[in-house]
């Protein structure tokens, strides 16, 4: 059970609210990307949309898993029958593992897909190899949890480099926001690594993650507002 919970007790539920908000932002961007794809018929936008949809679904998977874990823990507090609750959690362990595995696979797949779009990777061999390594490392991240966060940080840092290069080229406020978003998300993944040592790190990482995705919402709102003027 210890391996599943990195959140301090007072933060239970707050992280779920954060993640619901993140999922909503990513679905909004996925919808926007898909609308763009329908007009342009350019596959890059289809994959862009799919990547954000996968991020949304990954957070839904985490929300559902966390919700069930917190429910079990809070039930323990209510009844105080530790033996009964422990048994329930052991039964649910497989479900929790699967939920987190799904979250990790979907999130890393989304980041990898975004990287394919940015880097215009066409070779099927390279794609297959990268997907294989992604699945392999995600599987082992069940035992060594920080591997997942390291992978995510690495992919996000690569996305940040692309976004930063775009900012250098365009020098617009919008492109700087996107670059800042990927940088914030990279840092959040690094901070997540320390959540096994200090539960406060989990809170900071969650807040950073929320801030990172909120930047995308801010970018969306800025573009919409400027166009109305």
């Amino acid at each position: 059970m210890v391996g599943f919970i990195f959140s301090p007790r007072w933060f239970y539920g707050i992280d779920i609210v954060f993640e619901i908000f993140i999922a909503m932002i990513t679905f909004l961007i996925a919808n926007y990307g898909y609308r763009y794809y329908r007009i342009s018929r350019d596959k890059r936008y289809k994959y862009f949309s799919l990547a954000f949809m996968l991020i949304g679904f990954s957070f839904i998977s985490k929300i559902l898993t966390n919700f069930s874990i917190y429910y079990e823990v809070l039930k323990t507090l209510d009844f105080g029958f530790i033996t009964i609750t422990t048994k329930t959690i052991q039964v649910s362990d497989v479900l929790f593992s699967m939920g987190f595995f799904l979250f990790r696979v979907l999130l890393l797949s989304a980041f990898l897909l975004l990287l394919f779009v940015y880097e215009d990777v066409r070779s099927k061999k390279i794609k297959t190899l990268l997907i294989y390594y992604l699945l392999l490392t995600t599987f082992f991240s069940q035992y060594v949890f920080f591997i997942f966060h390291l992978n995510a940080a690495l992919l996000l840092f690569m996305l940040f480099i692309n976004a930063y290069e775009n900012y250098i080229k365009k020098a617009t406020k919008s492109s700087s926001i996107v670059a800042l978003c990927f940088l914030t998300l990279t840092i959040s993944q690094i901070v997540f690594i320390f959540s096994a040592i200090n539960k406060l790190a989990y809170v900071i990482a969650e807040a950073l993650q929320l801030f990172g995705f909120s930047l995308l919402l801010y970018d969306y709102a800025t573009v919409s507002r400027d166009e109305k003027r």
Partner: protein
Amino acid sequence: MRRDKVAMLLDILEVVYKEGKAKPTHIMYKANLSHKLLKSYISELESNGILEEENLNGKRYIKITNKGKIFLSQLRKMRRFMESFGL
């Protein structure tokens, strides 16, 4: 950098919007498009009610509709958002 379809549609609509009404040849030069491509895009935009034709003194002009103005605004927004990602 290669222009995608949205960028090309935007170029067409911006020309027509700025000029009020424009001849197809004028749009072709301003939007830097081939005759074949322009013809297919104008026909697509007309069938969706975004552009309309007007004949003045035997000459053919292209005009933007009210629906077209809304579409242009949405397209600008979408393009800017996607550009912020470097796409």
